């Protein structure tokens, strides 16, 4: 939507200037000079943002012997040795699968719990609703860091340390998502579900066939946040996970760095392997991801 408005504005602009021929020539010449500078700046920015990724790949295929003098962009005798070492020291496939599984499970659970709670707050009248909702919102203020120590002890009590469940459980419900979806549900006219109630539809039907489809946009935003949050989460896995078979990518990478402190080719190979899955997802869903992120800013 925002894209199209800007495009129509910019295509309309030249027409406004075409009142006289001389005017048109000067303005378009000035425009092209300015436009050249703008494009140069944009390209420069893109190089600064993308070059570190290229450098990571280059380093990972540079023979370790020549790394001491620093790799060069044109790799002499590229090699996959670093990747061999990487796969020998960590169950890379398993770790990628773990990350995907945990992120997907977290996302699905958060979508479910958030939309259900949002429905309750938006559509069911009950005593003390404001107090309960305030309590929910209060949990949004508590940073994970405050909870790490007691949560770790609690997981130890439950004997859940070093399991998938310990990674998923703390993020089953998140107040941020509930708040986001409730905002969307509040903007759906109540006449709609009142009419359905008269037709004999119950809460479950109204929720699943009427309200949910109308909150798709905010559910998509929530999905992006839940997935990215889980995918990038580091502190909590660092605290509860010990065995390589339950590690997620950030933790596996940190372990790798611990083993190969100075072998940058191996560390960069690990970085490449952890960027690939999310980059593939990004390639297909970038529009949704970027728009999901930018929606939160407008509120």
């Amino acid at each position, binding site marked *: 939507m*925002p*894209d199209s408005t*800007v495009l129509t504005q910019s295509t309309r602009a030249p027409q406004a200037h075409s009142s006289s021929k001389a005017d048109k020539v000067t303005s378009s010449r000035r425009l092209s000079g300015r*436009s050249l500078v*703008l494009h140069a700046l*944009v390209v420069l*920015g893109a190089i*600064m*943002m*993308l070059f*570190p*990724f290229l450098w*990571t790949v280059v380093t990972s295929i540079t023979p370790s012997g020549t*790394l001491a003098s*620093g790799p060069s962009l044109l790799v002499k005798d590229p090699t996959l040795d670093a990747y061999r070492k990487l796969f020998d020291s960590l169950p890379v496939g398993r770790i990628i699968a773990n990350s995907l599984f945990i992120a997907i499970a977290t996302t699905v659970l958060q979508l479910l*719990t958030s939309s259900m709670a949002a429905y*309750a707050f938006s559509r*069911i*009248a*009950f005593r003390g609703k404001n107090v*309960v909702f305030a309590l*929910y919102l209060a*949990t949004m*203020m*508590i*940073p994970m*860091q*405050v*909870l*790490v*120590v*007691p949560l770790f002890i*609690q997981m130890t009590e439950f004997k859940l340390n070093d399991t998938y469940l310990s990674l998923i*459980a*703390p993020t*089953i*419900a998140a*107040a941020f998502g509930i708040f986001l979806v409730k905002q969307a549900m509040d903007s759906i006219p109540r006449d709609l579900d*009142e009419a359905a109630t008269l037709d004999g539809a119950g*809460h479950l039907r109204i929720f699943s066939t009427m309200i949910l489809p109308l909150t798709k946009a905010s559910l998509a935003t929530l999905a992006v946040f839940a997935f*990215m949050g889980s995918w990038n989460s*580091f502190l909590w896995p*660092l605290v509860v996970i010990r065995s390589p078979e339950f590690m997620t990518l*950030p*933790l596996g*990478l940190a372990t790798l*760095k611990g083993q190969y402190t100075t072998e940058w080719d191996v*560390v*960069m190979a690990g970085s490449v392997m*952890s960027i690939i899955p*999310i980059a593939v997802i*990004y390639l297909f869903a970038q529009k949704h*991801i*970027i728009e999901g992120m*930018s*929606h*939160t*800013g*407008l*509120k």
Partner: protein
Amino acid sequence: MTSAAHTWEPIATRKKKTDWKRYGWLAFFLLPSAIPLAIFVFRPMISSLWISLHEWNLISDMKWVGLENYSKLLSSDQTWDIIGHTLLYIAGYLPIVYFGGLALAVLLNQKIYGRAFFRSAYFLPVITSWVVVALVWQWLLNPSNGLVNQVLGFLNLPQPGWWTDPVWAMPSVILASAWKDLGFVMVILLAGLQAVPGDVLEAAKMDGTNAWQRFWRITFPLLSPSSFFVIVISLINGFQVFDQVYMMTGGGPSGSSQVIVGQIYDLTFRYGRAGEASALSWILFLLIMLVTAFQLVGQKRWVHNA
């Protein structure tokens, strides 16, 4: 409001049965989130407060010390150093991401070929995890054979020790963090820019203002809700900074880049001082609450049309 009250009235006459049913539905919709929040947020929150009043190494019995952990923390120079490092991080990081992100957003709001491509390119670091960003930058800023120092050497400029040097450790972390978050700030400000009405700018242009004036007098004030949002988010994230510091410097060299969350982690899992760690995490919580209060007050005062 009136229509809701109106619809509930006839239901109230059949009170007993519907009440039972309504609370049944309420439980169905609310418990899936209420139970996890109670177990994984409220319970640990209360026990964190409890632990903060004890001396405890995670293994032996807890020993009640009252507010001693807090007074010990607040009277130790180390705590203030750590809070100082966290503020230093914010002071370096925030202006770079905000003005850098603003510049990128303004740039992409122009007539640019392949705008969607550039937007995606700038955003790529945002989806990369902190651990990867930290490692890549640790390598780029490697004092002996990193790319940045090679380029600096080639240009005959001084080559800092970056994350191995107490003075340059925090700037290294700031640089990596800014690189990762620029795209996020850019995307939010770009959405804000695109909501600025074109006819207002057009009218100002007719009045003979130049682009610079139009930006600072019209666009920038109209952008204030988005600006305020990214600044508050960045402040809160700044106080919670951990991943990149842990990976790049581990808080070193010799504690020169230790931040609040890093200290909470080290106190608990390296030194076995869980009581102090919990007390410090409550101090962090209060700092974040301060930012939130600032948000509530500031939004009314400084944000256009809030």
